């Protein structure tokens, strides 16, 4: 395979796309958000359960490309146990990384497995795929007033 693709589809991503961490309808839940990427038809329905100021659990159902599915899986692994404020700042960090076109260095301490999405920054058409689950969580929290 040629170089650019390897940057995009890192092993970790392909692996998460198969593992689908957190897939399933979470019950009970506090917030829910359905998002759709009209360009390619990616869809996600994401549910979040809170525990005070922290994320207790995430669950998602959806279909889409490997990037969007992997990204949901990574998020579902990363978020539980973190405070809402912390999760929000990590969502922002991923957004900044993906929009940087390669100018920003990913920080594994902040992003966890999501550092693997650094390569997406060079593929502007895929940024929405990688952000889909994360934006869904962000909007679910906002709807909850958190």
């Amino acid at each position, binding site marked *: 395979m040629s170089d650019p*693709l390897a940057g995009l*589809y890192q092993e970790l991503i*392909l692996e998460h796309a198969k593992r689908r961490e957190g897939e399933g309808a979470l019950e009970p839940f506090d917030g829910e958000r359905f998002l759709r990427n009209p360009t*390619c038809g*990616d869809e996600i329905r994401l549910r979040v359960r809170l525990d005070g100021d922290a994320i207790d659990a995430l669950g998602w159902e959806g279909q*889409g*490309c490997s990037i969007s599915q992997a990204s949901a899986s990574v998020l579902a692994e990363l978020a539980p146990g973190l405070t809402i404020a912390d999760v929000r700042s990590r969502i922002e960090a991923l957004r900044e990384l993906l929009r940087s076109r390669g100018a920003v260095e990913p920080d594994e301490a902040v992003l966890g497995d999501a550092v693997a999405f650094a390569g997406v920054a060079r*593929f502007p058409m895929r940024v929405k795929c990688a952000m889909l689950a994360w934006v869904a969580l962000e909007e679910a929290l906002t709807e909850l007033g958190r």
Partner: protein
Amino acid sequence: MTIGTQPALTEERIQQLRGDFPILAEQPVGVPLVYLDSGATSQQPRQVLEAEWAFRTRHNAAVHRGAHTLASLATDDYESARDRVARFVGARPTEISWAMNATDALNTVALSLAEANRAADVDPALALREGDEILVTEAEHHANLLPWQRLADETGARLRWVEVDDDGVWTADAALALITERTRVVAVAHVSNVTGLIAPLEPIVAAAHAVGALVVLDACQSVPHRRVDLGALGVDAAAFSGHKMLGPGGIGVLYLAERLGAALPPARVGGSMITTVTMTEREFLPAPQRFEAGTQPVSAIVGLAAAVDYLEGVGMAAIEAHEVALGERLAAGAVAIEGVRLVGPPPGVERAGLASVVVDGVHAHDVGQVLDAAGIAARVGHHCAQPLHRRLGVAATTRASTYLHTTEAEVDRFLDVLSTVRGYFGAGRA
């Protein structure tokens, strides 16, 4: 070898034509570009760019307005372009007016019918009432579906559709069964942008006209790739886009057969399409000016006429033969790959020079990315045909679409890379 009066598109001839298309020498990902997305938008030969450059630097002015010499030169260019585009599709010049794109042209027909329907003295030939029907197919592009949905909603008419089978194919019989005394409009794509299916127009036009229904043709994927004689087909209206036929963006063509053009009110109103205006009243010019409100995209029209000249120079019969062969090669090649599902007519049945496929277990977006890394520009998504994709049971397909500059080697390269996709994503492994 010649086809019609033009040389066939042999490998040698194609290589020669490719020299006219500057973009084909670009390497956006660092390897030679294989452009298989002409169905979305086509690339422009130097001749089109040069015609526009000459117009803009020598004759640019408002047409049909001023009395000065520059305006007169611009008007000549403009009307000459209309004549050439009209001749290209077997139309009279007065049957051709301009739009922003084909979507705009199709909207114009539907909006104008809605406007006609609101008139106090509705022309019975144009009237749409509750109980009337508008017929489309399940495979339509959104551009030839949404305007009719809305017209149906507004008038109380019922939208009906010809269903497709598991491959996305529909038949003349299915269409004819739905054309009844209630049918007022039949709107259908000449060639499907997803399946490559060529619509069985002849019986449909006959049946529609027998019940007094109008036939509106979405000719976006036919006019660029094969000889289309709209007058001979007998359709009442048709739409196509310059950017899909080697021409510039920003220019769509609206064909209104003389009888319809004479009856239809305009969708857009403003300058250059009126005879008399008072603060409360307005009277319109006859077609085609009636449908050309405001300053038209004259440079793009000049470019489109240059594209038409170029296509005629190459020969539409030669282009059609070449692309039909490439379509067959794509279809046959796709079904030969394990885990790849072909949409549309099976190999051996005529299709246009395009093919859409589904790769088992791999999302189309990922397929497109693997192709792109190999320099292959193909289109992934629902191709503005969500109902069709829903019927096929997939969110998205991957489409390769050809044009006169496409080589067999490019098609083979596409098929080659396509065959590696499942392995790459580990699909098919247990």
